[in-house]
């Protein structure tokens, strides 16, 4: 699951470092050392890690693409992709069932999984830097439960209209997420400043309120509909129709680009308020901006795929343990790893109990938890 970009093959237990120094060189196999935390970020190191991760992502995608209700070999995949994307017979009418399954179900679903993973992991990184709190993730701010509440309300009132190729449910979820953001923001703004702990606290309180409201709504719904609602809350990556998927992707892409442009600022913000301000960064405005983007990304992702937890909090941690805390590398690497992780988890969710499927959130927690524990226990030396 992890990158092939040279994790040390035998993590020998380390004597604890007496003085935490930033560029201490551990006594691992020399070749891999420069890739990992502790080494100074150089363009070549960046390229090596990102290149390795990208390669791993492509390989993983090829593996996942073959697996499903029916196995589709690489040759057949190449043939299908070539004929539909590059051939003249781009008609859906000429595709057989295998072709439809591959190109219209499996590929969009994997794509959605990857994008959702990328967004959740990136937002996790941003929020952890912003709040300087290892527990921060998209869910702590209550944005996700806000979005879920929006969807629950829409389902309760049976809103079934479509707007701009987006069905009403994602839209309502999105509005709910925005509402949550505004409320958190209003609650947390005191004296025109944004103290970190009050944001977290506001998020926790909102989470509680929204969860209660969601439970209330599901408890007064008709049993069949509350059943579907609960299933949706557990998270599923059933891809929407192409126009909606395209709209969502463009939207998320823009958000991600805006977020990725902030890497240097994140580096400085991670040092603390005062250093950042003395370095001439308008902390309040920047924080507000990153905060807003994070909330919008999360709202959109939650509205389309339900609540998939775990990725926003754990993937950034895991990647930080691997590559260090420099956001210029940490943010893109986390994004890739998050995307890969969710794609692989969803493949398991799709294939483990054919013909049924499992909520993907269960798989992410079961697969990621032990891995995180391994990182913490075996690679303590990496905790800077």
């Amino acid at each position, binding site marked *: 699951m992890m990158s092939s970009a040279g994790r040390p093959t035998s993590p020998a237990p380390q004597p604890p470092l007496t003085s935490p120094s930033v560029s201490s060189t551990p006594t691992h196999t020399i070749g891999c050392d420069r890739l990992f935390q502790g080494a100074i970020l150089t363009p070549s190191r960046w390229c090596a890690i990102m290149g390795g991760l990208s390669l791993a992502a492509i390989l993983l995608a090829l593996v996942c693409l073959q697996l499903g*209700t029916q196995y589709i070999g690489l040759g057949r995949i190449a043939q299908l992709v070539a004929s539909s994307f590059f051939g003249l017979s781009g008609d*859906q009418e000429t595709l057989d069932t295998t072709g439809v*399954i591959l190109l219209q*179900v499996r590929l969009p*679903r994997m794509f959605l999984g990857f994008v959702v993973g990328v967004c959740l992991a990136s937002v996790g990184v941003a929020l952890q830097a912003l709040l300087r709190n290892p527990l921060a993730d998209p869910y702590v701010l209550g944005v996700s439960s806000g979005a879920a509440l929006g969807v629950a309300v829409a389902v309760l009132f049976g809103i079934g209209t479509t707007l701009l190729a987006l069905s009403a449910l994602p839209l309502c979820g999105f509005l709910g997420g925005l509402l949550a953001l505004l409320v958190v923001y209003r609650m947390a703004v005191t004296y025109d400043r944004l103290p970190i702990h009050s944001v977290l606290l506001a998020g926790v309180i909102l989470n509680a309120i929204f969860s209660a409201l969601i439970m209330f709504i599901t408890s007064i719904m008709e*049993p*069949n509909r509350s059943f579907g609602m609960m*299933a949706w809350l557990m998270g599923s990556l059933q891809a929407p129709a192409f126009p909606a998927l395209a709209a969502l992707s463009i939207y998320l892409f823009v958000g991600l680009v805006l977020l990725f442009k902030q890497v240097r600022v994140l580096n400085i913000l991670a040092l603390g308020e005062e250093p950042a301000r003395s370095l001439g960064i308008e902390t309040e405005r920047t924080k507000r901006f990153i905060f807003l983007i994070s909330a919008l990304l999360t709202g959109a992702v939650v509205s389309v795929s339900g609540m998939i937890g775990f990725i926003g909090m754990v993937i950034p941690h895991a990647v930080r343990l691997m590559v260090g805390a420099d956001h210029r590398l940490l943010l893109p690497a986390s994004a890739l790893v998050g995307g890969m992780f969710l794609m692989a988890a969803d493949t398991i969710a*799709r294939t483990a109990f054919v013909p*049924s499927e499992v909520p993907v959130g269960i798989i992410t927690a079961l697969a990621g938890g032990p891995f995180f524990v391994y990182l913490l226990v075996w690679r303590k030396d990496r905790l800077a």
Partner: protein
Amino acid sequence: MRVSSSGFFQALGIFYLRAARTLCFRPFVITLVGIVWYAFLLCSTGALGDSPEDPTVMKRRQQGILTGMPFMANITPRTFVDDAGRKLYVAKVPSRVVSLAPSITEMLFALGLDEQIVGVTEFCDFPAAASTKPKVGYANPNLESLLALRPDMVIAPREFSRANILAKLDELKVPVFLIEASSLENIFSHIHQLGRIFDRSTSAHAVTLAMRRRMAEISSLVEPLPRRRVLYVLNSRPLITVGPGSYIHQMIGLAGGVNIASEASAPYPRLEMETVLKENPEVIIFPMGSVETVPRSEQQEWRRWTTLSAVQQQHLREVSADALNRPGPRVMEGLAQLARVIHPEAFPSDTAPLRP
């Protein structure tokens, strides 16, 4: 602290720590008081010997108006075993009954028990008389309003009965009869059981006979026709359908269809789109209730799967969710609807609700 002897403290000359020894009996006293208090509670509630926290275990003690002699329970015809395996000895016919599910309300009304029904859920809207009855909630029935109705019998669906409420009712000697429908035969036997409890066996027989007649009638119409592959969409996103272990799955078979989720391991499995495309259903059925369960826009979304024969032949059909999702006397109407949408050619007299 490995230290337990005061000798250690004395050796260290720390006198005040020796006082801590005098406090040592306090935990014992507290524990003792706790044990006594717990024993008192146990005796006072008479809970010794049965476990109120597990409603599914067989009960020896009989409750409520049912309290006859315990040994009577095993020999009289007035003993009933519900779907949770609990034995109820009903000495006399209950005169105030509360129903905790729409399907149960419909069964009771079908047996002509209008007078005896004193409470229903907020989803009980059929027959019309049901909506005038007092409401006690559904998934979380309100215990106080339930008790205020002074029921001498509560009929509840097994899946929605909460263990704590059940335990409380047992403790208060209010008999609860739990039922669960996982097949059509269950529905018939429920009606018969209720008929025996309320001394309405004759009407129960009449009701089930009419139902079986209707069932045979429908089956005979669709029997000679080729079976069609059916997808029943309970929920579109995520896609949830019915599988083996649900009576709707059985009804699809009776209506001349083959459920494409027959392989699934759960009564209400999540299904993957890949499976749907591979199985290629010829009819896709959307249950529609008073409120839209599957919004029409989502039904439109199904049209993009152009390889499905159901889409090619325009076989996206709606059925009434109320008739199908309530395992009660109206279930045959649901079966008729299913048969109509799966085999419209078998019902030339009336046109099936076909959506353009």
